[in-house]
């Protein structure tokens, strides 16, 4: 009896509840600048597409701040290319909201239209 071929499937990202590690804040954003060393500046975007203002403590300016984010090791290993304009999902540490880790590049069909 032939066996159905297994395909690699998307591993669901651990949710806050299921993760036994440090809690993370997961948000989406748009890449506004590509920096050396697979670092990116990402402008946070809320669930409805509105710009998100992340309070990092020291800021008093009006403009929503871009977050300095690096590419998750998992994505580097898979050679996921991220460029300016891409929508990404990133994780922030609750202890330092000015830094993020990009964990996902959203496909066109996952993009929330503004």
């Amino acid at each position, binding site marked *: *009896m*032939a*066996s*159905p*071929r*297994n395909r690699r499937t998307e591993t669901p990202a651990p949710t806050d509840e299921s993760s036994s590690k440090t809690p993370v804040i997961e948000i989406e954003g748009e890449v506004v600048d590509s920096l050396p060393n697979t670092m990116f500046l990402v402008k946070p975007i809320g669930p409805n597409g509105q710009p998100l203002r992340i309070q990092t403590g020291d800021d008093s300016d009006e403009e929503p701040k871009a977050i300095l984010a690096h590419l998750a090791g998992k994505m580097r290993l898979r050679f996921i290319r991220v460029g300016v304009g891409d929508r990404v999902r990133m994780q922030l540490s609750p202890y330092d909201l000015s830094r993020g880790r990009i964990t996902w590049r959203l496909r066109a069909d996952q993009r929330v239209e503004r």
Partner: protein
Amino acid sequence: MMSGSIRPKTAEQIEAMGASGRVLAGALNEIEAAVEPGVTTGELNEIAETYIRDYGGIPSFLGVPAADPGIEPFPGAICASINDAIVHGIPGSAVLRKGDIIGLDCGVILDGWHSDSARTLAVGEISPDASRLLEVTRAALAEAIGASVAGGHIGDIGVAVQKLVEKAGLTIVRRFVGHGIGRTMHESPQVPNFGRPGGGPELLPGTTLAIEPMVNIGSAGVVFDDDGWTARTADGSLSAHFEHTVAITESGPRILTEAA
């Protein structure tokens, strides 16, 4: 579902699988002799099940759970796949007609060891295209077995099938694959009927595989009947399927599903 690592078998275990395979080959010979216009696939199923139980075996296909939820476990001892059915046809009231081709796939458990084998047969006289399909697919299985040598790789088996089939202008079904076999029907590794030379895991002596090229005349696409099991060619073209359980040994491939 298969998971885990490849488990090579000892010489004694391979002998035990050969005993299982001989019962299976006997059962397939019985139903092959019964294939003629007017016979139903349900009757063939009964012949196979009776034969296997007479020899102390268990028909391993009975009750195989479906890969997708909400589908009943497989209800037969054989898969009977007529014409455009590729694999996993449920035996029942379907009547064989002259000119049909029928894929007969069956599995046996004897003393806890599995064997799995299939052949596609002509019902009476068939078209030249159909008989060429059977010839090529049978030859592809022979090539694949020839490539199953210790030190080779799973990919080499796929290459052997792919070369022959594609040169003949026929297409390979990619939705289903062969598999390791032993204490359970589906073990690691998967054995695709396509590949790259040297690709996939290395073939170690003692590895036992169910090698099973599935070949279509037209599209490689697969559609399923409402029963959730029967897999057909998307374009309705004919499909053939041959399979043997094979052990990789120091002295070359050994077919385990042959009659004594």
